[in-house]
């Protein structure tokens, strides 16, 4: 197990370096950030000073080497735009995105699994049909549209919830979390819901399909023949089997929620990393882009690792090995 974890982390370190190099070079190829950073009327002297300050006057291979050496020391450089440390810039924004994704994930699990199982057990009845129709709707609604409609309804019309912004936060390890301050929950609710609708629908479908399949299996029949209660059969025998695909998919979804929360963040003026990334790309702020991607890939790696470990716990037939399952 430990060897497995270490090997996996080693592999990801390699992936991260390779990816960082690729991004570094491609951002360089796109254009010169100086053109964007400086006012159009800046004179030649100002221009030369800025180029020297950002280290853009040196040849590409030197810039890259410096970047690699710094990377090895855990230093991802300073933002061209803000002049501050790229990693701190991201870490200041990351909790906002993380807690959005986590709340959405929890919603997907606590709403999606029971609804999916219920629909699977009553697939011929109106409950099953209703839930499955709902999940199709949840699947097909575009995120931004859903967000805007919710704002119109709950913020503008009913005035129950704030239309956007982060709201109150509590501090933990120097980072800001809305979850830690109940006054911040109303702000968190709508963006998290918006982000969650699609995941809930996804989990419903997985749980539905899994339950229908499991209920036809001989092991369920045997469990019934043993005289077990439906609660035990569904809560233990069926649930443990359907969790296997759900865990896998949710792991992937959690990663993508963190990486691509930008739509929801924009609609709700939620100060997360998604917004920061888009701005940084627009300004060719290379250190921030690279640092962001490294952090995201690192997080993907950890999530995948957690999924694989969970997977091997849920399914005894799976042994931890390289290359996943």
């Amino acid at each position, binding site marked *: 197990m430990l060897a497995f974890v270490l090997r996996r982390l080693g592999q990801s370190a390699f992936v991260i370096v390779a990816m960082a190099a690729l991004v570094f070079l491609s951002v360089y190829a796109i254009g010169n950030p100086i053109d964007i950073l400086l006012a159009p009327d800046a004179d030649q002297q100002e221009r030369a000073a800025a180029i020297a300050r950002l280290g853009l006057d040196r040849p590409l291979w030197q810039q890259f080497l410096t970047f690699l050496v710094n990377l090895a020391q855990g230093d991802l450089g300073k933002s061209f735009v803000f002049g501050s440390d790229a990693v701190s810039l991201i870490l200041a924004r990351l909790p906002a995105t993380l807690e959005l994704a986590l709340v959405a994930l929890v919603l997907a699990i606590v709403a999606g699994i029971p609804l999916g199982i219920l629909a699977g057990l009553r697939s011929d009845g109106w409950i099953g049909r209703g839930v499955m129709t709902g999940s199709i709707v949840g699947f097909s609604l575009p995120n931004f549209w859903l967000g805007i409609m919710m704002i119109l309804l709950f913020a503008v019309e009913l005035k129950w919830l704030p239309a956007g912004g982060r709201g109150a936060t509590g501090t933990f390890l120097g980072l800001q979390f809305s979850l830690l301050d109940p006054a911040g929950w109303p702000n968190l609710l709508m963006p998290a819901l918006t982000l969650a609708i699609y995941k809930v629908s996804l989990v419903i479908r997985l749980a539905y399909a899994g339950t229908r399949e499991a209920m036809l299996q*001989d*092991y369920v*029949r045997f*469990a019934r*023949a*043993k005289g*077990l*209660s439906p609660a035990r059969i569904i809560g233990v025998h069926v649930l443990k089997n359907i969790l296997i695909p759900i865990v896998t998919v949710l792991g992937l979804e959690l990663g993508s929620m963190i990486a691509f929360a930008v739509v929801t963040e924009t609609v709700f003026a939620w100060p997360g990393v998604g917004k920061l990334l888009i701005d940084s790309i627009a300004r060719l702020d290379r250190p921030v882009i690279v640092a962001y991607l490294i952090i995201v890939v690192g997080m993907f790696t950890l999530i995948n690792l957690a999924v694989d470990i969970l997977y091997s716990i849920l399914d*005894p*037939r799976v042994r931890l090995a390289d290359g996943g399952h």
Partner: protein
Amino acid sequence: MTAALQVSNLETHFFTRAGVVKAVDGVSFSIARGEVLGLVGESGSGKTLTALSILGLVDPPGKIVAGSIRLGDEELTGLSERSWRAIRGKRIAMIFQDPMMTLNPVLRIETQMIEAVLAHAVMSKDNARQRCREALARVGIPSPDERLTAYPHQFSGGMRQRVAIAIALLHSPDVLIADEPTTALDVTIQAQIVAEVQKLAAATGTAILWVTHDLAVVSGLSDRLAVMYAGRIVEEGPTTEVLARPAHPYTQGLLRSLPVNNQRGRRLNQIPGSTPSLLRLPPGCPFAPRCEARQEDCVSTRPPESQHGTERRLRCFHPLGEVSP
């Protein structure tokens, strides 16, 4: 003496879009304490559904529409789900065809056994585990202590079926239904399992309904034989009598299709044709299209059940030879 199990005129039908499938269409038999009744018939003749009906495990669109199932002095049809659950696994137990499928792949043997004990007995988990250990030892599983914590995939097919048998016999049931439990196993294991079940059931006086499509399996095992065709029992009697002097052309056909040791290599005499659709049975004898002894009356009228002596029953207008009592 009352029989351990008495089934009379049982009808289990499936209400499908295509029409009513009469999977069990007026089945009657009884089994005494400690007796083994072999239920034989080609695949699709309704054997499994007869078994599931006795456990109250027929799922919609299937339904027991008529008849009676008596366990000792108690009538089971019309019982509430709760009362039926109290009987399953305690007074009537069942083992299934494919031991690869009957144990839940993601739960430890221990979990699956202890839950079966606790479903019908109030005791501590430790005592329950002790009981499981003894049960595994009884069915010939070496080092039961270690095996308890293993998962099903760590067992061979034969060992899994032994575990299933151990679970089925945990509460010394009045009736054990074995639905082709050896079909998926190789011949030597088959013989061991048959002998094992026979020995264990004899020790507790458990009545056995042994379901199979293979006459050879039950010939050395059952006291009496019931031959099923298209949802009905067409011939019943003491095993030795029926095998020596089959009276129903279908029984004879089954016997003829058995491979004979000293005629290895000879083509087997399969009964020509196939089982009729239970959706639209012909008005006469359902076996008529395949029957060599068929006469005109067979096609128009369904043969009623006739009693021959005290022990043999038959559904045929033109039995082969004299039906001996």
